[in-house]
C-alpha cells in the first residue's frame, strides 16, 4: 500500500472516531455484565429527560463503527426510554478482557448494586483476574482465611495468587478480603427466600446472615416478615437466639455446672459465699477423686 493511501486510511479512522464525546444510541451495543435487575429505570429516564445523561458512558470501539458499552447500560436504557438520540461517551481503547474487568470494577464501585449482586460481581472479577472458576476462587479464599487464623499451614498466604486477590480488593477499595470471606461469601449459601428478599433490597445482608441460622422454614418465614418490617439487627438477633434455643434441646445440667465452674474466680466472691463454695467443691473433688 502506498504511503498516501495509508495516510488517508488513517484519516478515515480519525474521522470516523467521534471527537469528544457523543454517540448515537444505535451505535452502542450492551454487553454482558454483573447487574441482573434494572430497577427504577423510569425514575432515571425521567431525570435523563430533564437534564440529559450527565455522566458519560464508557465504551470501546468494535472496529465496525459500533461501540460496546463497557459501563453505563442503565443510563443507556434510560436514555432510550427518554427518547434521546445520542449520549455522552468516553471511548476507551480496551481489549475484551480489560473491558470486562473495567465493567466489573465500575459496577462494583457504584452504590446501587445489592449485596448479593456485589458478592457475585467480586467473585466474577476475581475469577476473571485469576483465570479460575468461581468455585476455585471460593476455595482459595477459604484456604487463605484458614491459614490466616492458624488453622492450616501457610501455603497460600503470601503467594502470588493471594497477592493478586489482595490487589483486587485494594483496587475496589470497598472491603478487605478477610471481611469479604467472613461476611459476604456466606450470602452464596442463602436459602431461596432470603436471597429473594436480599435481591429485592428488602433486607440488609447482615439480617439475611442472621436469619440464615434459623433452619425451621416456618419460623424463618415469620422472622423474615418481621425483619422486613424494620426490626433492628439487635432485636432480630435476640429473636433468632430465642428461636434457636427452642430448636436446640437444652444442654444437660451437669455441663452447665462445668461451664460455670470454668468461669469461676473464687477470689472475687464475698467471704461467706466463697467459704461455702470451696466446701462443696472439696466435697465434690473427694467424691470424684
Amino acid at each position, binding site marked *: 500500500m502506498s504511503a498516501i493511501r495509508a495516510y*488517508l486510511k488513517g*484519516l478515515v479512522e*480519525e474521522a470516523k472516531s467521534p*471527537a*469528544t*464525546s457523543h454517540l448515537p444510541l444505535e451505535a452502542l451495543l450492551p454487553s454482558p455484565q454483573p447487574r441482573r435487575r434494572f430497577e427504577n429505570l423510569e425514575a432515571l429516564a425521567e431525570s435523563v429527560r430533564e437534564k440529559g445523561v450527565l455522566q458519560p458512558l464508557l465504551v470501546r470501539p468494535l472496529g465496525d463503527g459500533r461501540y460496546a458499552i463497557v459501563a453505563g447500560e442503565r443510563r443507556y436504557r434510560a436514555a432510550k426510554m427518554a427518547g434521546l438520540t445520542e449520549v455522552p461517551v468516553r471511548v476507551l481503547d480496551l481489549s475484551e478482557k480489560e473491558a470486562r474487568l473495567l465493567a466489573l470494577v465500575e459496577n462494583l464501585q457504584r452504590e446501587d448494586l445489592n449485596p448479593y449482586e456485589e458478592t457475585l460481581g467480586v467473585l466474577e472479577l476475581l475469577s476473571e483476574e485469576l483465570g479460575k472458576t468461581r468455585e476455585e476462587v471460593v476455595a482459595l479464599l477459604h484456604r487463605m482465611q484458614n491459614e490466616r487464623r492458624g488453622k492450616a499451614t501457610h501455603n497460600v498466604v503470601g503467594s502470588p495468587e493471594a497477592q493478586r486477590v489482595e490487589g483486587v480488593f485494594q483496587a475496589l477499595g470497598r472491603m478487605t478480603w478477610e471481611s469479604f470471606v467472613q461476611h459476604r461469601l456466606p450470602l452464596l449459601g442463602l436459602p431461596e427466600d432470603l436471597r429473594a428478599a436480599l435481591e429485592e433490597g428488602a433486607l440488609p445482608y447482615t439480617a439475611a446472615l442472621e436469619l440464615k441460622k434459623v433452619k425451621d422454614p416456618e419460623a424463618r418465614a415469620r422472622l423474615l416478615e418481621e425483619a422486613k418490617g424494620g426490626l433492628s439487627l439487635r432485636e432480630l438477633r435476640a429473636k433468632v437466639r430465642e428461636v434457636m434455643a427452642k430448636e436446640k434441646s437444652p444442654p444437660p445440667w451437669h455441663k452447665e455446672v462445668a461451664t460455670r465452674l470454668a468461669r469461676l474466680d473464687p477470689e472475687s466472691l464475698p467471704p461467706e459465699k466463697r467459704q461455702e463454695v470451696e466446701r462443696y467443691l472439696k466435697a465434690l473433688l473427694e467424691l470424684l477423686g
Partner: protein
Amino acid sequence: MRRERLIPLLEWARREGMSESLARKWIREGRVEAVRLGHYWYIPEVVDGPEQGTQTYTFFTHAGGAGKTSLARDLGFELASRGYRVLLVDADPQANLTAWLGVDPNSVEEEETLLKVIRQDLLPRPRQVGRNLYLIPASVNLAIGELELDKKPLGALALRTALERVEGEYDLVLVDSLPSLGSLAVMAALAGDGLLVPVETGAKGIQALGAVIQVAKEYREALRKVNPEGVAGRSHIISAFIPTKYDARTQGDNRILQALGELEEIAPVAPRVAYRPGPHRKATEGQIPIQLTGDREAAEEVALLTDFLLKRVFRFEEVVA
C-alpha cells in the same frame, strides 16, 4: 413556485426540433427571447418548481489556492442556470469571489458585507449578479470582522442565525470561506448543513486534510447543541470532498486521485476538477464562470460536478419543465 431557468441554445433547439442555425436566426430576428452569457446563448424558461427549504453549504479548507472561490462561482452559476435560486456569500476579505462576479470590491459598502451580520445580526440585502444568482459581497474591511467576532458572544453562530431569517428565499446558499481557521472561517463553517472540501490533487492538498477533518469534528460538536438532528449519527460535518487542480499528465496526480477514493468512507468524493490555467485566466479576466469561456471540457466538468452534488449531497427535488 415559479422559477426561471436557462436552457443552453443547442439543447433548446434540439428540443424544439430545429437546427442551431435556425435558432440563432430566430434570436437575431427577435422571435425568441434569449440571453448571451460569456460565450453562449441561453433561452430563459419559466418552470414550476417544488417548494423546498433552503440548504446551506460552505466551501471550506484552510489551504489557499485549493479552488474554493472558483467552485463557488462556477457551481453557483450552474445551479442558478438550472433554475435554483442561489445566494453566494463571500466570507473572504480578499473579495475574490466578489471581483470575479463583476462587482468592484472598492464599491462595496461595509453594511453590504458580513460586517452587518457581525454587528447587527442582520443579513445584508444581496446584490443580484445574474439570473437566480445573488451575492453578499466582501471587501477588504471584512478583515476587521475577525476581531469583532472574537468579542461577540456566540459570534460563531451569527451567520447561521442570520440565514435562518431568510429561510425559504433561496434554494441554496453557498458560502465561500477564507483560507484560515480563524473566527471568520468558523462562522462560515457553522453557517449551514455541511462543508464542501476542495482538495488540491497533490501533496499540499493531502497534507491539509488532517486539520480539516479535525476541525470538522470540533464543528460537529459545536453544532450538536444548536442542531442535534442535523448532526446525529455523524462524527464530522464534511458533506463532500472535491478533488481540484487535477493534472492528468502527471503520474503523481493520478495516483493521488485514486487514493482519494479512500475518503469516500468519510463523505462522498466528487468527480475531479482539472487544472486549466488558460480558461481560468479567461474567466477571471472576463468576470464570468469558467463554463462560459468556451472551453467545452471545463463546462462539461462543472455540469458533471453539479449533477453529482445534486444527487449525492443536496438532494433537491428536481426543478422540472
